[in-house]
């Protein structure tokens, strides 16, 4: 399971294109005020998301962060339903209540983005415990950013997963910055896999720009998890091309740094090269793929635009099961 076959490769490439196009489109719409509350663009980080999902079964569980469009799309949610949620429309994955940071589809194994740094890891760990208690054959994956590796709850969750040997994989979607803070400035020890391994689980620093490398480490982690061998930590080093939040620039990194990642380490460019080299597709097919993606995203925008707002009358609905609790 170290490389992706033709079918999976093409699917992965297309998925990365979907994410990129989605994000760049949404970013512009956000600047035009279409995404209430702003959004966190994941452009540049496609391989880590798609590599992980390529190794998962459809009903494996994930829980993630405030930056989660890429995870959600890679998990198989349609651009329409995700874009609609960004627009806070009733047809969105969370009915327009969640917004960009709270994409979810619990019945389909997406336990949600999160407004709180690190919280998704705990929820995913809990799902892994549920899998274990109910004796299912699935794994649960928790995403966290490099910034989230300094919040205590992340380590509590990792420790708990280790001692219970939970079917759990923790992926650090390490884009090297938390808002404007470079990971090296706030991360004692510097080496996240070394940190994690001190908690007693297999831990790896990997190239998050190579979708196959991410796939391979995730697939192996999944095997271990299903075999009852417990959790794995994967630190996938990647890069975000845009600001933390849409519209933000800041002086915390150089234009050269961004350009270097964009031009020499872009995950889509890189994997397009792999696909061409392996002759899984011709250049023409790649171009067609990109065009079909374009259409799909255009349709997603149209869908989101034309979708109805949630009904105002629902603001107090679905909070709990009602004043007297369940009927006994």
């Amino acid at each position, binding site marked *: 399971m170290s490389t992706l076959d033709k079918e999976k490769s093409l699917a992965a490439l297309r998925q990365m294109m979907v994410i990129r196009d989605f994000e760049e489109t949404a970013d512009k719409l956000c600047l035009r005020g279409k995404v209430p509350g702003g959004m966190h663009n994941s452009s540049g980080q496609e391989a880590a998301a798609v590599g992980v999902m390529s190794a998962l079964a459809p009903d494996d*569980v994930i*829980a993630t962060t405030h930056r989660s469009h890429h995870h959600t799309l890679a998990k198989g949610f349609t651009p329409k339903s995700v874009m609609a949620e960004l627009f806070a429309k009733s047809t969105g994955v*969370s*009915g327009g*209540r*969640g917004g960009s940071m*709270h994409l*979810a*589809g*619990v*019945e389909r194994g997406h*336990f*949600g983005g*999160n*407004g*709180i740094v690190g*919280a998704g*890891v*705990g*929820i*995913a*760990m*809990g*799902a*892994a*415990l*549920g*899998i274990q*208690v*109910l004796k299912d054959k699935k794994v*649960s994956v928790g995403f966290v950013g490099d910034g989230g590796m300094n919040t*205590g*709850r992340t380590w*509590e*969750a990792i*420790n*708990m997963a280790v*001692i*219970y040997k939970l079917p759990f994989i923790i992926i650090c979607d390490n884009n090297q910055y938390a808002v404007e803070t470079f990971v090296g400035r706030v991360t004692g020890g510097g080496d996240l896999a070394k940190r994690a391994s001190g908690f007693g689980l297999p831990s790896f620093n990997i190239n998050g720009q190579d979708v196959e490398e991410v796939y391979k480490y995730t697939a192996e982690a999944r095997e271990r998890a299903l075999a009852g061998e417990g959790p794995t930590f994967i630190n996938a080093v990647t890069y975000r091309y845009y600001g933390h939040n849409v519209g933000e620039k800041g002086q915390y990194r150089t234009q050269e740094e961004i350009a270097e990642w964009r031009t020499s380490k872009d995950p889509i460019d890189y994997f397009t090269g792999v696909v061409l080299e392996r002759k899984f597709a011709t250049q023409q097919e790649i171009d067609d793929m990109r065009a079909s993606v374009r259409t799909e995203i255009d349709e997603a925008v149209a869908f989101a635009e034309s979708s109805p707002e949630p009904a105002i009358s629902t603001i107090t609905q*679905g*909070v*709990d*099961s009602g*004043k*007297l*609790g*369940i009927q*006994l």
Partner: protein
Amino acid sequence: MSTDTTVKANATPTYSEAFQSGVREEMTRNKGIFILGTDLQERGGHFAQVKGIAQEFGFDRVKDSPISEAAMVAAGMGSAMYGCHPIIDLNFIDFSLGAMDEIINQAAKIRFMFNKPVPLVIRATSGIALGGAHHCNSLESFFAHTAGLSLAVPSTPMDVKGLIKTALRNEDPVIFLMHKKLSGIRGEIKGDDYFVPFGKAATIKPGKDAVIISYGYSVVTANKAAQALEAEGISVEVIDLRTLYPLDTDAINAAVQKFGRVVVVDEAPLFGSITAEIAATATEANFGSLKGPIVRVGAARAPLSANPAMSEAAIPSVDSISAAVKKVMKY
């Protein structure tokens, strides 16, 4: 299935044993229920509240946890979303302060945001007794204020059992507070099919002249005050709310309308206590029925002291409650 520690219906078990009894019945019925907390398997929890359950249901269903409150609640939340119905035992409610994001920001909001119920029970021992400032936080108002949470505060073995069974059939997160000073009290409990619904207060003692509305251990103190006042010719009704959310506003409104003389008591610091919500809303709804303002009795605005006399003096007593009743009787 039954062991030495199993409590029979109609026996007079302790408050802690009543909890066990309800949990056992529900665990038998629902394989998705498991319990997670510190020192549960052998010790059975700090107050013996789950004593023997691990031996009966297996160590897979009663899990000993590291001291990681945030992860404990997250484990409960994630597994509840997945399909289990966990009981997260936080030991003392004070330790919930290390898991507040998981409780307030996450568990309570998931159903609203994701249209997915989170059937999770968070049990903890609460209330004021010895132990000092870090072990005597009254956090009821935090939880009651949070949309998405229910909050059960039983004061008798019967209600502990009836409410934990309801909690374990409830789809949403329930904070289940068991008062320290009640752990050892004994009382009758009922069988497998007895449930105490959420949002239904109980009349602990009927009365004719005034009403005291309370919950938890304060019900015991209020009842003592009521007994003492009886001797002085004042007949006081005592109402035990049993859950603070949902709150039995029907019972509260009826009592306010009937008596017009109302005292609300708990042992949380008075300023901002849940008694303020009860008094404010009941006043707004029943102003015309009131013979005078609702009087609240609560704790001093201070941390609790390790010194027993100081600690006792900070919270409502038979005397302070009686004085409040006499005040409303003067209207």
